[in-house]
């Protein structure tokens, strides 16, 4: 440890959608690394400790080091030449960078999609179909006396969700914190989150919709046959007890995870939990919220929504935005073989996508922007190494409850940030598209917005 130490107060952790903005970072400026992250959870501590300065080149083409400018030129040429270029990722970068990515899609008449499509995309569809009775996490902290988690494991994925917002903190109307709350966990297996709950309800795999629909019926005073237990693994008495808890709380909240969205039923499951929440408002105040994964996946939804009108899976091929999950979402455009060029920003689909989609990635020119080397950067035609948001760059991110948070950086990086690279690509693709259309713009005459 050097003597050149800086303390950064109220820094933001962007590892997960909790986006905790109460970090106190101790930074070794000579060694360019964070040596302590006070208030961080186990995931946050690893996030801050492991994001140091790498030793790989800023830009590579086909595995060979090139200048940043050469890589930008090759990226722009590739995107403009393609007939069906796709842009994907964006959940681990700033809103400012996301905005540039949308503009590039618009200029090249491409398709833009975010990791939302493979996490809470189905919930996005359900929002449009059913509607969301929503809140901020601050409201939950101050008011919620019944907290239900469904199909999620925050102890592993969002450790401070419990301690900062939902279970242990004392709030304005929850003066005794944990003692004033009832916590319920619904899942198909006893996860590390189970010990936090007062009641754990184990559902048979793939039967969440049936349980949610039965709860809706019970809330409305309908009879349910005891054979529900054989079908779902949950007894009628357990369901009746849960309905009693839900109807008689003062402020209830249903958080749900990818146990609902990634399984059979997808948006119907998310829609069922939102419909149940709406039904409960006839009796008490009830809200629901998907628990979002990546640090700025919520920002990606917001930026795409305010720029295109749609949250993910947007196509500009006709010169105006069109939304069609299943057609313009990335697993589909890759699995069907539609995409003939792809730019992946702050995401590693070559590691997590279905096999058929990964096979197609290997056949087309891929451009990758990432802070670390990944399966995706390894197969990329053009690979940019970028700095880390929230550690090396400031900017804006959205917490999972749609609250925007301004970040501050801890130390400088020799690597450019995503916004810088994307802004340069945007400028160049615009020039190329104008040239293709025979539009001559004198230097300094026009400014790309």
């Amino acid at each position: 440890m050097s003597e050149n130490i800086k303390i950064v107060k109220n820094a933001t952790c962007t590892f997960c959608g909790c986006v905790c903005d109460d970090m106190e970072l101790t930074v070794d400026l000579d060694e360019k690394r964070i040596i302590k992250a006070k208030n961080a959870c186990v995931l946050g501590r690893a996030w801050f400790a492991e994001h140091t300065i790498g030793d790989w080149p800023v830009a590579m083409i086909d595995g060979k080091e090139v200048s940043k400018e050469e890589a930008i030129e090759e990226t722009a040429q590739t995107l403009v030449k393609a007939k069906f270029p796709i842009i994907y990722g964006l959940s681990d970068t700033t809103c400012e960078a996301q905005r540039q990515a949308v503009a590039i899609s618009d200029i090249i008449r491409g398709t833009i999609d975010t990791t939302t499509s493979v996490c809470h995309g189905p919930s996005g569809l359900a929002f449009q179909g059913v509607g969301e009775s929503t809140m901020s996490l601050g409201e939950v902290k101050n008011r919620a006396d019944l907290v239900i988690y469904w199909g999620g494991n925050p102890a592993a994925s969002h450790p401070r969700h419990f301690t900062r917002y939902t279970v242990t903190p004392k709030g304005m109307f929850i003066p005794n914190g944990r003692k004033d709350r009832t916590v319920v966990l619904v899942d198909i297996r006893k996860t590390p989150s189970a010990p936090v709950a007062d009641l754990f309800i184990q559902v048979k795999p793939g039967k969440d919709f049936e349980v949610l629909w039965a709860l809706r019926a019970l809330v409305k005073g309908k009879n349910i046959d005891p054979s529900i237990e054989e079908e779902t693994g949950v007894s009628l008495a357990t369901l009746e007890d849960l309905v009693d808890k839900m109807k008689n709380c003062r402020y209830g909240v249903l958080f749900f995870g990818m146990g609902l969205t990634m399984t059979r039923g997808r948006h119907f499951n998310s829609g069922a939990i939102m419909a149940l929440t709406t039904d409960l408002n006839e009796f008490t105040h009830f809200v629901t919220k998907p628990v979002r994964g990546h640090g700025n996946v919520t920002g990606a939804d917001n930026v795409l929504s305010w720029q295109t009108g749609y949250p993910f899976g947007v196509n500009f091929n006709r010169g105006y935005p069109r939304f069609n999950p299943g057609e313009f979402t990335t697993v589909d455009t890759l699995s069907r073989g539609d995409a003939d060029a792809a730019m992946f920003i702050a995401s590693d689909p070559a590691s997590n996508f279905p096999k058929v989609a990964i096979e197609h990635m290997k056949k087309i020119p891929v451009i990758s922007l990432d802070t670390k080397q990944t399966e995706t950067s390894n197969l990329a035609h053009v690979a940019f190494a970028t700095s880390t948001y929230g550690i090396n760059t400031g900017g804006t991110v959205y917490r999972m409850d749609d609250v925007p948070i301004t970040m501050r950086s801890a130390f400088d990086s020799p690597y450019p940030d995503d916004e810088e690279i994307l802004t340069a690509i945007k400028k160049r693709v615009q020039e190329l598209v104008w040239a293709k259309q025979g539009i001559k713009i004198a230097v300094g005459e026009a400014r790309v917005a």
Partner: protein
Amino acid sequence: MAETMILVPGRSSKQGTALNKGKLKPEYLLVTSTLEMNSDDMQRLGLEEGDSVRLSNEVGETVVTCKGRKPEDLPSGILFIAYGPPSSQLMDGDTAGTGMPISKNIEVLVEKVTVKNI
């Protein structure tokens, strides 16, 4: 001996800390290729801690290492794995018009493998 079971890829705390080191690093590769299995199921299939098992379905196959979990924590017939390159091999690309492939509750055939038949 082989049996059909339900595979549930998901997040784990170890996976979360390992991915910060890098997804190509040994820690991440190890955590995403470790399969959690009900210990009674393991016994029935003649598996011991650390044995290799092949998971396969109509999409593809992968070989992972198994680790026992108490029956009260992981029901019989359910397998958990931190999602990553091995679980991707078993995911179908069809999203049924939603954009979301079925990424949890994937039916797989589980069988013990020895070094010879990997």
